[in-house]
């Protein structure tokens, strides 16, 4: 395929990719729904052992991560300091530990490890989002 130089065709191509993404994921959801409709166990269909579900989740997670550079500018929050990020991470760890230990009835020590995995994922997303935040430059008068 030749490299597209025309800006209108580049946008057209991106719209085509978006449409094929919607069709592909719609088809995946339809097949997953069909599998459930056929009477297959929920735990078997909605499981990472099921390649269709894995592909669907891969698309959903990558879309969520990539959409950070859209949602962050829309929020337009000021950049957080390292202290705030660490504080958020600690809060996330405690809440995740309480959730795993209290609600999921996981062994308290295993809950610490599980909560740590949640915290690493949460903090990673926070770090990327914070990196995308621009310092505000609202200077309207020059001295």
């Amino acid at each position, binding site marked *: 395929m030749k490299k597209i*130089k*025309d*800006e*209108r*065709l580049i946008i057209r191509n991106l719209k085509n990719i978006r449409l094929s993404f919607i069709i592909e994921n719609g088809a995946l959801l339809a097949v997953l729904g069909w599998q459930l409709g056929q009477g297959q166990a929920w735990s078997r269909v909605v499981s990472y052992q099921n390649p269709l579900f894995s592909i669907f989740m891969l698309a959903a997670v990558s879309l969520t991560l990539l959409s950070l550079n859209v949602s962050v500018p829309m929020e337009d929050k000021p950049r957080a300091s390292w202290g705030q990020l660490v504080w958020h991470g600690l809060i996330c760890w405690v809440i995740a530990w309480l959730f795993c230990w209290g609600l999921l009835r996981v062994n308290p020590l295993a809950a610490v490890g599980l909560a740590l995995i949640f915290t690493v994922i949460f903090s990673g997303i926070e770090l990327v989002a914070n990196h995308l935040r621009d310092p505000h430059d609202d200077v309207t008068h020059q001295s």
Partner: protein
Amino acid sequence: MQNNVRALRVAAHLSQVELASAAGITRQTLSLIEKGAYNPSLKLCLNICYRLGQTLDQVFWVAPGDQ
């Protein structure tokens, strides 16, 4: 959005293919720009102006309310 690309291209004795190729776009895109059916980016507007030897306001300026 309306513009003067077509009139200025004809005045410069350039065909759609020649101007499109010089500006790095396809003839179809140039045709849509001339019809006002596609709004080009500022970079492309400048490229077209350079090829026509005109300024941005001579080619693309639209008075407020005429859009």
